[in-house]
């Protein structure tokens, strides 16, 4: 069953510098029980794209195309319908858990918030649910009485995951859930997420700039650059044999220890990502691309098929000589 479907979605911010296209012609779908990763540098449109699912974008953003959540067009919903859908059908684990908790409220009150807002249960029943939720993410139930500052970063992230699960949503949007956590805690949080996904059969959209994280957690991956998906396919394919030179550069930025090929290979991508309001002509990646040809400067490649595995590149799959 398709939980979430982006159908030719473009998102444009109105600003003083004119129209800024943050997301351009993105099509992507998430099935039940599937984890889909979205990779890309900062500012490539990952968060903008996923914020549109619950219509959390600022008023200056214009969305075209269709976003269907469980078959319903999100953009056509009334505000009341939208509020009912928020968290009950799709929940978000926010970027930077440190700040997504209100410092002046107890964990208990904040975890109970979505339950009390969406379900007709009393404070007592909500309280027991809070205890269960905390134990589900591996925290003792008595931590419910704590304030956010009494928890460590990893514990706060667990609380955020527990909160996302509070209303038993079918779709989870994890926006860089492990950024700002140290590697050990990151591994624990990822394990927890994977086991919860398997247990509850959730669909997950997993945003990260860290390909190693996505490789470990996702079934499918979409690589974004300058607001477009430049490559998508099965996670194992995309990481092992990336077709797009940008995806290749991203994958190469994480060397495999002990693999001689990574020793002298140039890592990283030279230059900066383009400003979305002033994209280069042709393929937006061409100024930074080692394989750029005349064709790349003039015509923008499109993502040919939305099927199994595709890349938006004139030289997809070619090996750099």
């Amino acid at each position, binding site marked *: 069953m398709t939980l979430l479907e982006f159908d030719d979605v473009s998102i444009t911010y109105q600003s003083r510098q004119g129209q800024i296209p943050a997301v351009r012609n993105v099509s992507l779908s998430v099935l039940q029980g599937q984890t889909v990763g979205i990779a890309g540098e900062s500012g490539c449109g990952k968060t903008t794209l996923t914020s549109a699912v619950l219509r959390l974008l600022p008023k200056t953003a214009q969305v075209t195309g269709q976003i269907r959540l469980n078959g319903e067009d999100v953009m056509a919903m009334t505000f009341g319908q939208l509020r009912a859908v928020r968290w009950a059908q799709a929940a*978000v684990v926010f970027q930077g858990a440190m700040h997504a908790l209100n410092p002046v409220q107890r964990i208990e009150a904040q975890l109970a918030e979505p339950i009390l*807002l969406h379900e007709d249960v009393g404070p007592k029943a909500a309280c027991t649910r809070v205890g269960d939720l905390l134990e589900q993410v591996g925290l003792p139930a008595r931590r419910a009485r704590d304030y956010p500052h009494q928890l460590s970063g990893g514990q706060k992230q667990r609380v955020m995951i527990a909160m996302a699960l509070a*209303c038993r949503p079918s779709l989870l949007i994890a926006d860089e859930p492990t950024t700002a956590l140290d590697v050990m805690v990151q591994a624990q949080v990822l394990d927890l997420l994977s086991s919860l996904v398997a247990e509850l059969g959730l669909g997950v959209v997993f945003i990260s700039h860290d390909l190693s994280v996505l490789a470990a957690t996702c079934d499918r991956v979409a690589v974004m650059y300058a607001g477009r998906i430049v490559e998508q396919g099965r996670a194992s394919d995309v990481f092992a044999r990336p077709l797009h030179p940008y995806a290749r550069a991203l994958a190469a930025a994480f060397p495999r220890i002990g693999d001689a090929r990574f020793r002298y290979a140039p890592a990283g991508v030279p230059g900066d990502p383009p400003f979305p309001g002033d994209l280069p002509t042709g393929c937006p990646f061409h100024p930074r691309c080692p394989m750029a040809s005349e064709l790349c400067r003039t015509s923008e490649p499109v993502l040919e098929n939305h099927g199994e595995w595709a890349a938006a590149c004139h030289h997809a799959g070619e090996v750099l000589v």
Partner: protein
Amino acid sequence: MLVAQFRRSRQGMLGLTIFVVFAMVALLAPVLFDESQLDVTKATGGVFETPSGHYWLGTDDAGRNVLAMVVWGARISLLVGLCATVLAMVIGTSVGIASGHYRGLVAGVLNRITDWFLVIPFLPLAIVLATVLGKSLLNIIIVIGVTSWPATARLIRAQTLSVEGRPYLERAKALGAGDLHQMTRHVLPNVMPLVLANTTLAVSISILSETTLSFLGLGDPTAVSWGTVLDDAFSSGAISAGAWWYLAAPGICVVLVVLGFNLIGRTLEDILDPRGAHE
């Protein structure tokens, strides 16, 4: 933590001591002096008697004990000051949060109303309102309350805007919270420290305002407050009679209480300042 920090502040404790002393005096007024001492017809002393062992603060033109009047005046002055402040804080906080939370038209209208109250000079507006509403204790509270909220509204609006930008409000929106829920559960607790610190500073202004309005004869004529005592002293010719105690006693009381509240307010502000300027 807050209590410990407050206790370490000498000026804060001094302010609190002043407040507690005056609050105790106000509460114990009926025990200290019988209410009949305020009655001109039952006055026992002579005209403008100087302070003595019997009348610690002397007597007024009708032979009433000035100390009794000042003690009873503390009740009204503090009551009006506190009630008017609560009213001003409720209005100011509501308007501030609402104008910070709702952008666009609502914020525009609320801000212009705040501007209007901010720009109109306080005293003429208060005098007109007091005259229209009539002389009573409740009206004085209303007059002070509805004229002294705009500065608070501005302050709270600024703080609300900064809280609105925090991720937990985005989270609250994402989990389906409505406007009222966001304002009462997330914004209000976060601006509350500021409201409290501002309250102590506003109390002193309210007490001063009450004194001013009563001195101008706009207070409740049946209630004795420091303002009405000052008014009586002025109109009975205490100045030309050299009865300095009649003017000084209520005047010093006002100064002390205002000082006390200011010390408390400044200390709270220092402690609650997120930039840690008090270190």
